[in-house]
């Protein structure tokens, strides 16, 4: 597979795209199991249709909407984004989807809305890994409202020009490319606008290691390993990790005045 047959958009990277094979066989998706090969092996148990997404909290129009309806609200776009895992590896992913901001605006948040909370599917039949309490299920992630409204924040429904495979978070997942991969919650069933900062899964599991913000930051090491370098999947050597995963020009302003060592 090569890159989409179109000129690059303002947010696309021109770096070499990670192959479909690699992007769909090397996944962290603990709902299927903790091994990187578990998601590809077990993804068939996930049924992405029929699928509904519940939208509630601080919105004028709380509703439960079918995934196909939700998708039809927006024209689908390509985005080629870098993806940096907190474990020190990275990929270049050609996503297909729509800006999160477009969805949020359509939901008409009330004046009280400050955060967006995402909840993934809880179902041990479809997610066998949820039989083990490795993490507190269901997986929950969140963004500050201004982060969610940033034009880089994206809801993906496809990858490499195809429907999103189960192991990559079918049918609907979050993509925030300047944050560590675990922020990109998969298989979303609920979107809640909240007044308070959501309690996110990894921050609950190990608060000293994973924060709410999780912005890619080579200067703040994980307590157990350095974040200064990363391996791009498909390459043997390591490359330097860039602040905000190379999106500093776009997003650094969101965090002006914040101590990013404390708010890691």
């Amino acid at each position, binding site marked *: 597979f090569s890159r989409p047959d179109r000129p690059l958009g303002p947010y696309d990277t021109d770096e070499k795209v990670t192959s479909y094979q690699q992007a769909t066989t090397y996944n962290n998706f603990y709902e299927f199991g903790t091994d990187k090969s578990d998601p590809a092996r077990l993804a068939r148990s996930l049924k992405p249709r029929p699928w509904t997404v519940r939208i509630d909290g601080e919105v004028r129009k709380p509703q439960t909407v079918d995934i196909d309806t939700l998708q039809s609200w927006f024209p689908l776009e390509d985005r080629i984004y870098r993806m940096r895992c907190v474990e020190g*590896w990275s990929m270049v992913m050609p996503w297909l989807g729509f800006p999160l901001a477009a969805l949020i605006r359509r939901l008409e948040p009330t004046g009280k809305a400050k955060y967006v909370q995402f909840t993934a599917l809880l179902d041990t039949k479809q997610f066998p890994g949820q039989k*083990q309490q490795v*993490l507190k299920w269901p997986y929950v992630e969140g963004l500050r409202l201004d982060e969610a409204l940033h034009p880089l924040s994206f809801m993906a429904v496809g990858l490499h020009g195809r429907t999103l495979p189960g192991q990559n978070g079918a049918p609907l997942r979050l993509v925030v490319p300047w944050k560590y991969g675990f922020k990109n919650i998969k298989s979303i069933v609920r979107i809640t606008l909240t007044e308070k900062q959501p309690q996110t899964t990894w921050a609950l599991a190990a608060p000293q290691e994973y924060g709410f913000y999780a912005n890619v930051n080579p200067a703040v090491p994980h307590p*157990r390993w*350095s974040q200064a370098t990363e*391996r791009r999947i498909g390459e043997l050597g390591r490359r330097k990790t860039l602040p905000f995963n190379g999106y500093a020009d776009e997003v650094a302003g969101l965090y002006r005045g914040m101590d990013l060592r404390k708010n890691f």
Partner: protein
Amino acid sequence: MTRPAPTPAPARRPPARLGWLVPAVTVGGLLPVAVLVYDALSGALGANPIQRATLQTGLLTLVLLVLSLACTPLRLLTGWTWPARIRKTLGLLGFGYAALHFLIYLFDHSFDLTLMTEDVLKRPFITAGFTALLLLVPLALTSTPRAVKRLGFVRWTRLHQLAYVAVSLGALHYYWGVKKDHTPPLIYAAVIAALFLIRFLKRRPARSARAGSRAAKS
């Protein structure tokens, strides 16, 4: 002796009978290297082959060291003598995999010794693994019968008790290295603790009995 008298070893079995044992363990222990090389060349190590090779050599180190440490408890429990014959081979294989694991780590960091030093000093996870490897070096160097003679059996034995420290640090290194699912490293830790306990319980009465007989003689 506290345990029932062991069934006497069959007199017909000469020591050469198990001559195949050490070569078989050596070949079997090296087989994973061949598999690893084959997988690496055929692309079977997946999307992140270096990480996979690091993990596999690390696990093989732990498995072989645990097997080596299981030899004496197994002999104490069963009275079999053959485990003692392969203890050294298993230990050396374990050291070999630890060295390979470390080499892959160095390769992963482009042999940048500054980066390595920083890792060793700053990150307990690496400190534990690196210390374990360092502790194994003197054990590997004194694994010859000549070294036993030179050091004297008592001192040699005491030195080689470092293997328990090394393998425990190895298990800790594994525990600290995983992101969340701590079950596998805890299984290793439990096995190591059980082996240590068997050795401790089985040795204690023997030693006090010996001390007692010595006291009676004087």
